[in-house]
């Protein structure tokens, strides 16, 4: 028994290393100076940790203005754009997703299968597959270079999964409780707001986080629909940065850290809810 526990812990350490090491390396790079980042063999632990790379994004003129200067200046604006798109998509997912999921969960017209199927179909359409016509559509709607286009497209792409997730969770909430609320003198809307939605909080949060993360990480759509540094989102800037052979490794790593931080904090913060939110949807499916 003892040996088994030790083995379990050994595996857990291994797993933790697998999960963490890549990000840690990026973090380490981000707090190194350019010269240390270039050292061979690499310094696993920085000798002179510095926040210069981070400062550079707020005060571009300060130090390494030459390397990837365009990316640096564009970053704050792009981050803001990403946040705006991410939050909008999250809200849209929660609002429209829960409305649709509620009807699927409560009106029993073979919802589960149809929903799963709808999800598959919409996921089946690869972004690359519809990017051309979408581009034409957005051009005609004069939505190119606008954040609205991104919100619309990202919402369309994430919504089926959200609905599927929410409907699974909603089904675990007994109908009795809603009815009790009606008996207790709530209108339908009040019953939703005071009783149903609070009970669904974990899944609503999971859905919102999922929507935010998906659009936060989305790359192809902003790459296509936006041009110029003012309108685009963070992933595009990072990719410009990453594909630039002159890029400063420390700065590149730092920009990565910036991009990782918000979803990372969200995931940690809402860890419990995300897992329990996924549980109902995924298991019952």
């Amino acid at each position, binding site marked *: 028994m003892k040996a088994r526990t030790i083995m379990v812990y050994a595996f857990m350490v291994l797993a933790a290393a697998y999960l963490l090491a890549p990000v840690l390396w990026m973090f380490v790079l981000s707090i190194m100076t350019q010269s240390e980042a270039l050292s061979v063999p690499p310094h696993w632990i920085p000798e002179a940790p510095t926040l210069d790379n981070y400062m550079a994004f707020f005060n571009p003129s300060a130090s390494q203005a030459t390397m990837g200067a365009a990316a640096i200046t564009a970053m704050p604006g792009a981050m803001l754009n990403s946040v705006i798109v991410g939050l909008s998509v999250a809200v849209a997912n929660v609002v429209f997703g829960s409305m649709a999921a509620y009807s699927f969960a409560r009106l029993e017209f073979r919802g589960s299968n149809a929903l799963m199927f709808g999800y598959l179909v919409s996921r089946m359409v690869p972004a690359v597959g519809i990017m051309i016509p979408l581009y034409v559509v957005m051009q005609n709607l004069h939505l190119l270079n606008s954040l609205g286009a991104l919100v619309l497209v990202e919402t369309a792409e994430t919504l089926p999964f959200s609905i599927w997730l929410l409907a699974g969770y909603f089904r675990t909430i*007994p109908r*009795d*409780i809603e009815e009790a609320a*009606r*008996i*207790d*003198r709530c209108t339908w809307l*009040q019953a939703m707001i*005071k*009783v149903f939605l609070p009970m669904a909080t974990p899944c609503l949060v999971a859905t919102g986080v999922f929507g935010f993360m998906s659009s936060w990480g989305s790359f192809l759509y902003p790459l296509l629909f936006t041009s110029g540094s003012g309108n685009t989102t963070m992933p595009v800037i990072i990719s410009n940065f990453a594909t630039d052979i002159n890029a400063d490794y420390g700065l590149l790593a730092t920009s990565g850290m910036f991009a990782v931080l918000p979803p990372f904090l969200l995931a940690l913060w809402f860890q419990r809810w995300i897992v329990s939110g996924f549980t109902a949807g995924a298991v019952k499916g």
Partner: protein
Amino acid sequence: MARVQIQSLVKRFGGTTAVDGIDIDIEDREFLAIVGPSGCGKSSTLRMISGLEQPTSGHILFGDQDVTRLSADQRDVAMVFQSYALYPHMSVRRNIAFPLENMKLPSGEVAARVDRAAEMLGITALLDRRPRELSGGQRQRVALGRAIVRDAAVFLFDEPLSNLDAKLRVVMRSELKKLHSELGQTFVYVTHDQAEAMTMADRIAVMANGQVQQLGTPEDIYFRPATRFVAEFMGTPSMNMLEGTLLNNDSGAQFSLTGTVHTISLGISLATERHQQSATLGIRPESIALVAPEEGMLRGRIDLVEPLHPDIFISVDIGGQMLLVRTNTSAKPVVGDEVGLRLETGSLHLFDADGKRMDTSTAAGGSK
């Protein structure tokens, strides 16, 4: 405060008819139990009274007001669910206060009422807990509290005791009855447990196949079942049913038991003109006495003896039909013995081939 009238109520779900035209007139302050096997339409009826379900046709009146088209929140009803349906994200206090808050009562009044209800139910100590921290019995009390805190016109109960263990169920039975007399409100109580209906209700509606088989006091139901279904459903152990032929001639009605030579004189006059028809004779196990073989009206062989002291249940085989006898004799009946049976003629129930009671004037319970 509210008389509840149910008029030709019908509920269909797709192709199936759950409630098939029922009429019940519930008096103010009455405790009415609706009892029946699962799927008989009792829950649908309750849900239509509550407003959670809309009837396909028919009317429901509270007092003089037609509430048929009002939704649950517009009617003044309180309800206790089988699953209790407590709000998991609220404390017990807020659970109980919730309906009052929705009615926009002043907070002082809300607090006072919650305290009073909690005290009545003995759950004052639990007020700050969450539902998940409570036992089944405690949850049940909270659900009751959430109902009685209201001054509702009608109180509805949907099998509220079926999730409790047997002992607690008996305790709650008497508490509910006490609660009814303290509150002085109209109670409608749905259950599949005929014992609950018998012990608590002023009147009982027995339902089967979406129809009311009989509506009456517990005594009516027990001693004068209107149909064979009611007779068999109410009472444990259930009533014996003997198949046979009813002979009606000048000397009076006689019942000839299938598979035997026995004929029982019923000593009653029947409304029917027919001389001969197949029928069922019902008799409760406690209305049969064990006698010497030659003294009985029927003769049979003991098939099984179950001592459930102080009573003993004895199954007697009479020409292939089984008859259960409940007795507290001190004599030890032995399996295989030949015995005679004496039936109390005043406690015989005769049902025609359709299961309808054939009026026997000698039965107890008076006329109605």
